[in-house]
């Protein structure tokens, strides 16, 4: 019982840190894909006196990535119903040119204002409509969710770190006597800390396997049947095999740091 308790006291906080890391990875991938969706769904309307090429727009602002010409004939067709051919030709000649401009990233509203200002500085551009208000509310909601999750992850990591420090104190108490005796008899550091390293590495591997298993379950079983759109749409990015490497690497780093701290702090104690 004591054996299991001792292991769990390190595995659980380590798992919490690994969950934080994995949440962060998944969150980054999910938000990137969501951000991409928002970015692709967004375009600003630009009205010009004369036709303009994408390269010309891009010289005015580097965030402009695509340009789509809105066919003037459709507009004339809609507004000139019942008008004679010569009349509609006159309307067409008098109409300015319309473009939908796409951006390379999801920008803050101040970024949109900057683009608007840059475009309006060109004499050929008559009008720019950024649809700022709906864009702004989307952006704020998105940023808020991003911030909340990051705060949660940081909070979880800090709490877990304190638990690990607590466990390090327990390790120090449990292993100090043996390590000091071994040191007196000339044991090298790796031999002195061998038991502790073994215990900690086993815990690190367990924690990695448990967290990976949890995310495998979420990806292949829970997400598919959850009925939550964002989960179902982003099922592929929920867990990747490379994440296991990242998790194992992180847990090994934490273990090495924790064990070395315990070993070095046990060294100076007087016998």
């Amino acid at each position: 019982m004591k054996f299991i308790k001792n292991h769990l006291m390190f595995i659980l906080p380590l798992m919490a840190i690994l969950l934080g890391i994995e949440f962060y990875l998944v969150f980054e991938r999910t938000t990137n894909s969501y951000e991409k969706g928002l970015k692709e769904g967004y375009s600003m309307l630009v009205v010009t006196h004369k036709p303009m090429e994408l390269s010309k727009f891009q010289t005015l602002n580097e965030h402009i990535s695509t340009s789509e010409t809105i066919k003037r004939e459709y507009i004339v067709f809609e507004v000139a119903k019942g008008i004679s051919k010569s009349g509609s030709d006159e309307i067409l000649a008098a109409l300015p040119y319309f473009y939908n401009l796409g951006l390379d990233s999801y920008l803050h509203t101040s970024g949109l204002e900057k683009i608007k200002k840059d475009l309006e500085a060109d004499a050929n551009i008559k009008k720019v409509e950024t649809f700022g208000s709906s864009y702004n509310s989307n952006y704020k909601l998105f940023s808020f969710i991003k911030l909340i999750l990051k705060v949660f992850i940081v909070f979880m990591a800090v709490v877990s770190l304190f638990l690990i420090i607590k466990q390090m104190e327990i390790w120090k108490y449990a292993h100090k006597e043996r390590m000091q005796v071994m040191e007196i008899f000339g044991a090298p550091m790796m031999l002195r800390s061998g038991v502790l390293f073994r215990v900690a590495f086993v815990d690190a591997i367990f924690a990695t396997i448990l967290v990976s298993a949890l995310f495998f379950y979420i990806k292949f079983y829970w997400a598919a049947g959850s009925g939550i759109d964002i989960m179902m749409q982003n099922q592929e990015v929920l867990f990747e095999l490379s994440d296991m490497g990242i998790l194992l690497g992180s847990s090994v780093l934490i273990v090495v740091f924790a064990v070395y701290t315990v070993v070095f702090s046990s060294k100076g104690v007087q016998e």
Partner: protein
Amino acid sequence: MSNVIHASHLTLTYGKTGKEVIKDANFSIKKGEFVFITGPSGSGKSTLLKALYGKLTPSQGNLVVGGLDLANARPRKLQELRTHMGIIFQDYKLVNEWTVKKNVVLPLMIAGYDTEVQDTQAHRLLKHVKLPDHADKYPLELSGGEQQRVGVARALAKNPVVILADEPTGNLDDYSSNVIWDLMENACQQLDTTVLVVTHKIPTIFSLPYRHFIIESKGVYEVH
């Protein structure tokens, strides 16, 4: 005969206050000698012993043990030196979560001997310290005297060049004390091991010739 321990103008300070415990001490101990160091409580006997196994660095002067200048020794060299020492403590310093056998073979384990050699040596040593049936017990299952005999067996495990003992019979009954003195005398006589014992009182029944140093008023003096 060569000096195993040589101190010249040795000064030792202790604790955060840097209080001088031993000042300007000069002495030499040769291979195979049996040495008692006595002195009143707090005179610095144990401090000197700590300096001899490198737990405390001399603040001034030189302290050479087994050819290694402890004032400037690198940790790796110090570690190597300790593998040639057998150290006995008044409070035994056994690893309580290990069996008696594992405690005894610790120096062999550190030296990388295989388990077969370790087992044979453990059996021989435990018989030697009159604890042949205690190999699989844990230290806390033994009496103080028995624990100290395990400590002595551990100190002798690798036939050390030097044995350093800090009040080895301080809290023990007569039987265990006699066994321990016998073991140390034998090591000195038969294996030519240098034995240095810090004690309050030199045992009355002691058959070997020995040297006696006394620590008083920060000085280390030989009693002739």
